[in-house]
């Protein structure tokens, strides 16, 4: 078990999971909480096994995505069918989506970092180009909300981790992830329009 991971008894058997899911479909909040906790535990293991290269924060991010998807999809489970294949099919779909999103985000980050390097490291004889890039970057930053601008500053310019940035801004890791994702998307749009 990872450090700081809450201690839980060994996983429930498939029949118990199916009973919990049936009660969940009936609107039982206690059963649902127990089911989600069990699913989170199993999905954490599944994600670590299938994508061992992910950072712990990205693994947890993916586990949260899977839980949100289960929530949205709970009417699609047929009580006469086993629960685990249904759950694993959702997890696989989310893992595939996450892989695509991760690659896209990495590409955006690379583009923004390339631009930052361009206006930081260019030789003096490319001063004019340097100024234009700086203005483009400034314009892209101007289109961001204060929260998004703060996320770019803490995570990209000061190179803080998500946890450090969340602590510095008095926000949460999840909110910082959303802010930086939105900020990068907006900046990419602005820069590509130029």
């Amino acid at each position, binding site marked *: 078990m990872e450090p700081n991971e809450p201690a839980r008894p060994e996983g429930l058997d498939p029949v118990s999971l199916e009973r919990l899911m049936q009660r969940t*479909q009936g609107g039982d909040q206690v059963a*649902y909480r127990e089911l*989600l906790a069990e699913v989170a535990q199993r999905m954490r293991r599944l994600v670590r096994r299938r994508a061992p290269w992910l950072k712990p*924060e990205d693994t*947890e991010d993916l586990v949260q995505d899977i839980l949100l998807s289960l929530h949205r999809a709970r*009417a699609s489970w*047929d009580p006469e069918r086993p629960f685990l294949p249904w759950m694993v099919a959702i997890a696989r779909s989310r893992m595939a989506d996450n892989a695509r999103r991760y690659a896209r985000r990495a590409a955006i980050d690379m583009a923004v970092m390339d631009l930052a390097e361009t206006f930081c490291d260019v030789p003096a004889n490319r001063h004019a180009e340097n100024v234009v890039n700086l203005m483009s970057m400034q314009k892209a930053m101007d289109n961001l909300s204060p929260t998004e601008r703060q996320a770019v500053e803490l995570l990209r310019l000061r190179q803080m981790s998500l*946890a*450090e940035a969340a602590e510095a801004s008095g926000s949460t*890791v999840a909110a910082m992830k959303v802010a930086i994702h939105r900020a990068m998307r907006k900046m990419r749009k602005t820069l590509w329009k130029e």
Partner: protein
Amino acid sequence: MTGRKRDIEATEALIERLSRDAAPVHPLPHPARRAARWLVVALAFGAAMVWAMGPRPDLAERLVDARFLLEQGAALATGIAAAIAALAFTIPGTSPWLRMLPVAPGALWLSTLSLGCLRDWWQMGADALRITPDLACFGYIALIGSLPAVVLLWMLRRGVPIAPGWSIGLGALAAAGLGNFALRFFHMQDAALMVLVWQVGSVMLLALLASLCGHRLLRWPGRADAIG
């Protein structure tokens, strides 16, 4: 507080929030039952369109022609099977057999038309293999398939976007297949090659175009939206 612990606490907070939102849900019926409901709407709309366009004058004759009945039966079966498969693709963990359902009727449909081409050629020679423009087929099929497509899209959205391209592509195949089925009750075109090229071709083209839009039409809610 470490980042790892903070992440796990965020997951626990999410579990709390989701469990408070655990309203009762009705499990979706089996894809075959849902497809049957869709079929009622699709056939009713198809029948209305045939009535509006006016049935072909030789319809009574065609209805006792084995080849016409076989081709129409295969087109209808392909449409129904595609609807079941499209709906099955939105249910995680369903049997792969259910998803392969349109393969057999689809193969039968193409085979009957291909054999029809050979028979036409045998009976009429090279004239039977002449292709003339019949672009109206595409418009009619798209028109007759429009309402069934919208209804099926609404039904697909109630499921899960496990394979959006397949779901939407098969949904379009179902709607266009039913459109083609209805079309032949008022459109006087029975030359097998013309049916194969302009009618089946239109159905396949619509299915292909729709499948390319699958990820736009069916997708998980964005994480940003979920966190709000």
